[in-house]
């Protein structure tokens, strides 16, 4: 069962990141406080207080994937290597703009075609400086997906060979999927 | 060397088989339709541009000016307006404009219309070089049809 193997390795990765958390938190706390201060609704404050666990075994029938892992932004390459080692294939890379939380989320969808399972890797990055390393060295197929994500969200994939617009016009300096984008 | 000749023979044979098929079809009747001379009959479910439906009793449109079609249209190409005549409770349709340049013929408006005041027309010969020709006044079309 490659899913079980991947789960184990990713759990170790997540655990490693949580040990390192204190210094990271110091940087992130600035951005994390803003929505709480700005948002009057109690619902949001609650959400920020209790983030979902980093590794969730999801119900495939309900969600459409088996494993949902949140890693630190600098660990996405390690996560990709783990999945590459277990012969997973890359399905898509995309972003989500969480404007209220001042964060962006990068989502990687992996799929095992031999022993079917789907794994989702996420990483949250601050919205003001959306940067994280590229996985296109591990999966060359991620090259275009990352370029597309850069087009739509302005997320910079550090180390990517060519981040010029793929789907947008070549002189585009806007990122249409940002929630504050207006045409 | 024998492989070479074998391939030569089987290859030529495959070409002859293909040619035989095309010759066979050459002698069969034409399957295409001679379009401007002949016309296709549209199926009952064919989705042309939308049209107002006449109420058989009153002779006017069935529309109650609820605005659901305008709200449900993904392309925003419907404009409806109505007013209440003196002493009447029901609104009467005064404008029904369809911007056909933007319409994607999805049919969501027809589905959302509770009184069944909308239907698809079966027109498909709608060519024009001018954009303005595609801003349809459906109320006027309804009157003209009578």
């Amino acid at each position: 069962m490659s899913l079980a193997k991947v789960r184990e390795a990713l759990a170790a990765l997540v655990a490693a990141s949580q040990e390192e958390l204190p210094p990271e938190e110091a940087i992130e706390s600035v951005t994390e406080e803003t929505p709480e201060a700005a948002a009057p609704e109690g619902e949001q404050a609650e959400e920020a207080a209790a983030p979902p666990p980093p590794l969730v075994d999801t119900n495939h029938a309900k969600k459409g994937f088996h494993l949902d892992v949140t890693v630190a932004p600098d660990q996405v390459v390690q996560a990709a290597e783990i999945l590459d080692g277990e012969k997973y294939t890359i399905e898509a890379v995309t972003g989500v703009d969480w404007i209220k939380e001042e964060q962006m989320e990068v989502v990687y969808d992996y799929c095992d075609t031999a022993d079917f399972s789907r794994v989702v890797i996420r990483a949250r990055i601050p919205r003001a400086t959306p940067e994280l390393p590229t996985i296109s060295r591990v999966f060359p197929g991620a090259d275009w997906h990352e370029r597309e994500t850069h087009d739509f969200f302005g997320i910079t994939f550090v180390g990517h060979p060519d981040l010029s617009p793929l789907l947008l016009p070549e002189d585009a300096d806007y990122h249409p999927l940002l929630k504050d984008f207006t045409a | 060397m024998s492989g070479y000749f074998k391939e030569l023979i089987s290859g030529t044979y495959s070409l002859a088989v293909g040619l035989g098929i095309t010759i066979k079809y050459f002698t069969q009747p034409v399957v295409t339709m001679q379009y401007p001379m002949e016309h296709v009959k549209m199926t009952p479910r064919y989705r042309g541009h939308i049209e107002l439906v006449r109420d058989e009793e009153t002779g006017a449109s069935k529309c109650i000016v609820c605005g659901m079609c305008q709200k449900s249209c993904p392309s925003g190409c419907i404009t409806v307006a109505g007013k209440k005549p003196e002493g009447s409770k029901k609104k009467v349709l005064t404008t029904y404009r369809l911007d056909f340049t933007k319409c994607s013929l999805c049919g969501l408006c027809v589905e959302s219309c509770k009184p069944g005041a909308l239907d698809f027309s079966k027109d498909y010969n709608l060519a024009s070089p001018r954009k303005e020709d595609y801003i349809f006044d459906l109320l006027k079309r309804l009157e003209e049809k009578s």
Partner: protein
Amino acid sequence: MSVFAESQTQETFVVNLGPQHPATHGVLRVKLTMDGEYIDRAEPILGYIHRMHEKNAEVGTWAQFMPNTGRMDYLHALAYNFGYSIAVERAAGIEVPERAEYIRVITCELNRISSHLLWFGAFVLDLGGFTPLLYAFDDREQLLDLLETVTGSRLTYCYYRFGGLYNDIDENFVDGSRAFIKRLRSRMPMYHNLVTKNIILMKRLIDIGPISAEMCRKYGATGPVLRGSGINFDVRKNEPYSVYPELDFDVPVYSECDCMARYMVRMDEIDQSMRIIEQALDKLPDGPIKPEKVPKLIKPPKGDYYAAVEAARGTFSIRLVSDGTNKPYRLKLRSPTFSNLSLYEEASKGMLLADALALMGSLDLVIPEIDR
């Protein structure tokens, strides 16, 4: 490639293939750096019909995005309708009545056949044979007529609804489908005699355009490209949705990795789709085509959802992020040919230009789906 290495000189020149080129079937531009007749680098340049469907989705309600799904892959629009319906049904917890599921499968498979027929004609046209295209279009025309009578449109269908269908099939549909399958069954040997066994086609496809299984994996290639490289993966089998588990069909797999393998996979898929349709027609139950109660305003609970279907070109999947309102917060469309085309640069290196076009045809590109 050894030929390439031998012919390597210092001189290369750049040729633009497209954006308006018959072999790219749409508006794809490939910037070719050529060394004589050999390709040094082929860089696809996309975005000529980019329409930002993903932003469109965020503007309207859940239901208002349905017409857009048929406009991505215009050749297999119903699979895209299907994928989006499944995603939203999964998110909002809507049950689909059995009759609706069967009709969905039948129409989706009919649409797959029409897509493969068009691909077949266009692919042979790319290789220089004009006649098969006309025969394929003849068959496809019958199919489109059949689908038009139930769905109301010929190409950009918008037939499925959350929880069911737009309307039920009409009385002629079942007989019409059976008659069509009978007709196509009798025509398939003709196609194989005319094209598959043709020596010119064989010479142009066998051992041309190798794509290894490993390359497929690294680039996320799916569909017939993957199955032509010996990997047995079909969402209909591996992650069954709708009523596919109740139907008996095979997944054609060829392990030659060349253009011929991809050609054969698609031709066999037509046969398998016919099998699926026949069984589904036999099993078609009576009943409603919509659930009793579909909420008028669909508001899926917060969270994200994933749904994948097997379209004619590979895995089409949708990632939905809902924030609990009546509009999608984020909707990611993962189109199969986007991934399939991304391996083109690596796969075409060192090939003859004419062979590279055969390779491109064997990927079965639909540009509006790549650009979205």
